């Protein structure tokens, strides 16, 4: 049968099981949008192409499947750059399809021509420029394969307009994908596995560092079994949250720059670190020279290029985390580390609980309260929390106790403000039965608030909790700590979010003190359609503890009691 390139594109997507495409049309992708009407694809019209990539990303993270974003050439494609880089840093499988000017104009600076494969070369797992209709199907199949296998990541396929328009006699390609240079899977060597087991059995003060790889490889059960049998406490990276239930007795909580003190101390004092699917990001390690300096290190990691990158390890097991843990588990003897666990427990005390209790809740509203209460009110439902980037993101990680995997979606590696709302829309498409809450700062929300219109047009129910402190809070915090409280360009005005919601035909609510939180959250839950809640929180509140950038992991700025800045600001 005769098919155009555009038709072949959709046939291939449908055959890949794609149901949703997040995109924005334009000149060079017009033939593809025209053909789309004949295929069972739900297209979500975004308000900015960055939103399309974050939606595809949120969809991928919530579903475990590949998300698809689409845009035209030139500005459409360049607007995707931030979202692609976000997906790259957090290993999120998305395929971005962009239109390109016709092949005869390539290189002539034609209208809306950008060398998008050149632009995205360092921020994609792989990318393609397709100029021949005969290459469209093979390329797309390879793109989906590369995006979802091994360490997942974004793949961009740039297709010229003439390739979309040209037609040929088409038969679906069912041949196996042939990519001789692509080796996504590795097997750890037996001798290395044996060495690792020996180190594990010898350790007195071991700590597991559980990263995003636990979720990506689906190793939640194996992690739990491993930790329980060997009695090893587990510290989580931001993206690893949910890999082990927060209530599990061996779960220490989040590590790193805003990790709790006992977690970072446990890491610094350990004699063996077991890094499971994490990459020793600088936000996790602090000063590398003093990082867990008495610990042997075992690194289980799917990506060979992460081995010995930041931290030199004693044993590297390069392979899929789940498979590798399955190989190790039969050889792990039950261990007793009660002394070590009790030591950590003593360090822990009741600091986190005390912190919430100590915050005055009459006439005040703290972000910690808001997040704690949202947790209490949503914990019994299937809930996905999608955050933006900044203070609220760290408070979320500290105060929302995630019991389930894939219940937190957040931009970790790139730290992309504006990620929250569009990623939440994508997540809701992936899991419509889940309750999706966006926890977002007033700064980040304003970056991509146009996507509220997308949510409205699509009738998408997400609850947006704006942690509104009138500042770019995290930058303000750094200015307070490290720049003598000189608030350069961080005080920030917001629109009236209640009216903004109402202008969309949505419900807008406002909370100014703690006693209102429960009623308003319940009202949001009971309302059809998206709800925007403006939480007017303390303005000069900071995230504690904090390891200053580049400082030793144990050199944390601890919580003051009470926070003088906040108390005085309120008492005035």
């Amino acid at each position, binding site marked *: 049968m005769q098919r155009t390139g555009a038709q072949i594109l959709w046939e291939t997507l449908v055959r890949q099981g794609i149901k949703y495409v997040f995109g924005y049309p334009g000149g060079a992708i017009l033939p593809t949008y025209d053909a789309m009407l004949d295929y069972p694809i739900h297209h979500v019209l975004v308000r900015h192409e960055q939103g399309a990539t974050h939606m595809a990303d949120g969809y991928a993270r919530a579903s475990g499947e590949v998300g698809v974003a689409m845009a035209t050439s030139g500005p459409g494609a360049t607007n995707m750059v931030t979202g692609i880089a976000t997906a790259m840093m957090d290993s999120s499988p998305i395929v971005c399809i962009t239109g390109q000017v016709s092949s005869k104009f390539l290189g002539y600076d034609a209208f809306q021509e950008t060398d998008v494969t050149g632009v995205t070369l360092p921020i994609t797992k792989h990318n393609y420029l397709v100029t021949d209709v005969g290459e469209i199907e093979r390329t797309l199949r390879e793109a989906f394969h590369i995006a979802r296998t091994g360490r997942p990541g974004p793949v961009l396929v740039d297709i010229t307009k003439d390739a979309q328009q040209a037609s040929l006699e088409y038969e679906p390609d069912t041949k196996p994908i042939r990519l001789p240079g692509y080796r996504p899977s590795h097997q750890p060597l037996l001798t290395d596995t044996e060495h690792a087991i020996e180190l594990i059995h010898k350790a007195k003060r071991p700590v597991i560092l559980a990263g995003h790889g636990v979720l990506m490889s689906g190793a939640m059960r194996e992690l739990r079994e491993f930790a329980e049998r060997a009695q090893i406490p587990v510290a989580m990276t931001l993206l690893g949250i949910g890999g082990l239930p927060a209530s599990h007795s061996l779960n220490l909580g989040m590590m790193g720059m805003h990790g709790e003190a006992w977690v970072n101390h446990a890491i610094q004092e350990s004699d063996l670190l077991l890094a499971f699917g994490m990459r020793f990001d600088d936000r996790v390690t602090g000063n590398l020279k003093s990082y867990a300096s008495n610990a042997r290190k075992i690194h289980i990691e799917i990506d*060979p290029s992460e081995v010995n990158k930041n931290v030199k390890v004693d044993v590297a097991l390069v392979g899929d985390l789940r498979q590798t843990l399955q190989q190790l588990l039969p050889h792990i003897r039950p261990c007793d580390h009660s002394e070590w666990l009790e030591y950590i427990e003593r360090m822990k005390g009741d600091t986190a609980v005390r912190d919430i209790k100590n915050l005055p809740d009459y006439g005040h509203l703290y972000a910690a309260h808001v997040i704690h209460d949202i947790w209490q009110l949503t914990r019994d439902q299937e809930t996905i929390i999608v955050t933006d980037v900044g203070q609220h993101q760290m408070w979320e990680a500290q105060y929302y106790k995630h019991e389930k995997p894939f219940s937190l979606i957040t931009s970790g590696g790139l730290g992309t403000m504006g990620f929250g709302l569009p990623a939440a829309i994508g997540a809701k498409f992936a899991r419509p039965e889940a309750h999706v809450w966006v926890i977002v700062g007033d700064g980040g929300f304003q970056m991509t608030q146009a996507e509220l219109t997308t949510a409205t047009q699509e009738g998408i129910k997400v609850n947006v909790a704006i942690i509104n402190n009138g500042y770019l809070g995290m930058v303000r915090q750094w200015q307070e700590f490290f720049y003598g409280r000189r608030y350069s360009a961080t005080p920030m005005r917001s629109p009236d979010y209640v009216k903004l919601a109402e202008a969309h035909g949505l419900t807008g609510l406002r909370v100014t003190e703690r006693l209102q939180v429960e009623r308003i959250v319940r009202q949001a839950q009971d309302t059809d359609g998206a709800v925007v809640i403006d939480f007017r929180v303390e303005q000069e509140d900071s995230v504690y503890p904090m390891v200053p950038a580049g400082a030793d992991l144990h050199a944390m700025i601890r919580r003051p009691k009470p926070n003088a800045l906040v108390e005085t600001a309120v008492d005035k």
Partner: protein
Amino acid sequence: MRHALVALVEDKPGVLNRVASLFRRRAFNIESLTVGHTEQKGISRMTIVIDSDQTSTERVMAHLYKLVNVLQVADLAKAPSVNRDLALIKVQAEKETRAQLLRIADETGAQVVDSGEKTITVEITGEPDHVDSVIGRLQMLGIIEMVRTGLVSMVRGDEALLLSEAHFDFNSEKKKENQD
């Protein structure tokens, strides 16, 4: 330490860019890079010389290995190998220095490939050290223009760099340390 990395890559548009871009963004300085055809159609061979420690070299190899168009990577610094560099050197050759130049060429194995009224162009092929020393001797006569191809390298003996499934031993260095 100097490492000669050899990569077998698919002969497709943009592959050189992908490799070069990788070295740039990971902040590795390339001393020389050559690309040429191999015995197999559709496969090119790159020889990339970097000055780097063992850990960083292994890391950049792992990054290279991840590129979809890269089929095989090897570090030839690890094995005895044949190394060749080629230089074309245009040297000032007035009447009084011509004989001296020809004598140097004769002694070092450099070939005279062209001559003009005031210059002679010689070609020298050999180990990079040898090429360096010839250049050194010619410098006093006055080098007008020079070009070097950069290193190409091949393992000695019957062993060949094949496309078979490469395996990375990420703990090789640690094991060596333990043995020492």
